């Protein structure tokens, strides 16, 4: 429309909007051999936005008081029009976020995109992983159901094994000796304000690094798959002759997001209670521990690991060491090769590790 053009012109002569759009979108070129795994990040961004929006909507009716929380969630699920939809989107979405995050991480591992100069991207990504786990854990308590209460008791109890400060840490986390109203208060503040803002900030940093350094080239379909970076001076990794981000790869991102939406909506409408055991619908009772409290699927491997090791401290230390190793991966694996089939040891270890994680998760489910 002529009016729209005049509006854009007005903004353009003041801030050079068209030039900015051209540089950021049109001239931003991606490698020709880019694949759909590079959409995972956009899908995650979409999921995050959806979580924030559904979360804010839930905030309108949810009451963060131990006596009223469960009833307010029951009210949302039963009496508020489409409340069930908002709540199930939020619950299913949180599980999807962890799943897509794992896929994103695995694709980065397989394509060697964590190697120099992108170590900071990996580190910020790792921090985002722990933040997502934290937001899931804190969010889990808010409905104040039997599952919420006891899963949080078990989770916060684990800090007990840390020598010297352990018991104090547990009390600090809970805001008291046992899980109770003070726990709800602090978990609510963390879940609704602190962690989402931190995630947003880190996502911003993650994207800035991506834009500044340049997208990595996938190692597939190329003769030379070694990492070209020398580390001598800053150099933006451009892709001359590549695919423009806008409209080409942006459309691919949107396609991927639509496919994700199809899967997501399928779960929300046809099997949303996939992640809900029946204890999720009983109000919290501090005096009755249900028979089989298990953490969510993405924590089952940790749960099973702690069951394997006879000493809780050893179990914790092993996991801590594993996470530290993962966090520092780019500084440990400095090999220049990026193609997965040309890094047999790394691939064997990684696939072995993934299978072992899946195995522990399944074991944790049945144990």
């Amino acid at each position, binding site marked *: 429309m002529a009016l729209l053009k005049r509006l854009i012109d007005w903004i353009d002569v003041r801030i050079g909007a068209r030039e900015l759009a051209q540089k950021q979108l049109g001239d931003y070129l991606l490698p020709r051999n880019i694949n759909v795994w590079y959409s995972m990040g956009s899908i995650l961004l979409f999921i995050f936005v959806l979580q924030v929006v559904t979360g804010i*909507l839930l905030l309108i009716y949810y009451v963060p008081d131990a006596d009223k929380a469960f009833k307010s969630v029951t009210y949302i699920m039963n*009496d*508020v*029009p*489409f*409340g069930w*939809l908002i709540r199930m989107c939020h619950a299913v979405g949180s599980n999807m976020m962890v799943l897509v995050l794992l896929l994103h991480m695995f694709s980065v591992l397989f394509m060697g995109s964590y190697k120099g100069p992108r170590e900071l991207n990996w580190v910020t990504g790792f921090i985002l992983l722990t933040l997502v786990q934290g937001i899931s854990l804190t969010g889990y308590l808010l409905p104040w159901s039997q599952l919420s209460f006891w899963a949080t008791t078990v989770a916060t109890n684990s800090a007990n094994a840390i020598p010297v400060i352990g018991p104090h840490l547990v009390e600090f986390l809970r805001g008291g000796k046992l899980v109770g109203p003070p726990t709800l208060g602090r978990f609510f503040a963390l879940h609704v304000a602190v962690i989402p803002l931190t995630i947003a900030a880190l996502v911003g940093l993650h994207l800035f690094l991506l834009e500044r350094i340049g997208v990595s080239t996938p190692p597939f379909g190329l003769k030379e798959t070694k990492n070209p970076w020398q580390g001598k001076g800053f150099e933006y990794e451009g892709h001359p002759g590549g695919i423009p981000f806008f409209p080409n790869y942006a459309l691919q991102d949107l396609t991927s997001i639509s496919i994700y939406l199809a899967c997501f909506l399928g779960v929300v409408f046809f099997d949303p209670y996939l992640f809900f055991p029946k204890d999720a619908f009983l109000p919290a009772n501090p005096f009755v521990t249900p028979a089989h409290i298990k953490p969510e699927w993405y924590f089952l491997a940790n749960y099973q690991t702690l069951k394997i090791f006879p000493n809780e401290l050893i179990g914790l230390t092993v996991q801590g060491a594993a996470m530290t190793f993962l966090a520092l991966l780019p500084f440990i694996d400095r090999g220049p090769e990026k193609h997965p089939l040309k890094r047999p040891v790394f691939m064997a270890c990684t696939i072995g590790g993934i299978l072992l994680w899946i195995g522990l998760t399944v074991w944790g489910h049945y144990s």
Partner: protein
Amino acid sequence: MENIGRRKFFGICLGGVATGALAAIIYPLFRYLAPRQTESSAGKVVIPLKDVPDGEAKFFEFAGSSAVLVKKRGGDLVAFSAVCTHLGCIVQWEKDKQDFLCPCHAGHYTADGAVISGPPPKPLTKLPFTVANGAITIG
């Protein structure tokens, strides 16, 4: 060229899907945020005052479940849900003791609905009512 034609076509298709998606989002969102209707006058129950003699209770149906009106001996009128707060049985009025007894697990309530003994975890839910022109309107 052919591509432009196809581009326009799919552009229109996408526009259609996008409009549909927008409607599918805006409608539930609006319903979710819109202020709820407060209880209308439908469902109110009217009982003549003379139906509830001194020291006696009258059971009736209100909002789909059992309710009771009590004229306390030498005192005022009170209205409760007659559903026992333990597991849902309907409480009985004991005229001689001027209290409520639940026959299922012997929960006892005072004439004011407070729990005296037994398993009920909460007092009987009070119901709002008004008295005018010799009639009691509950709800």
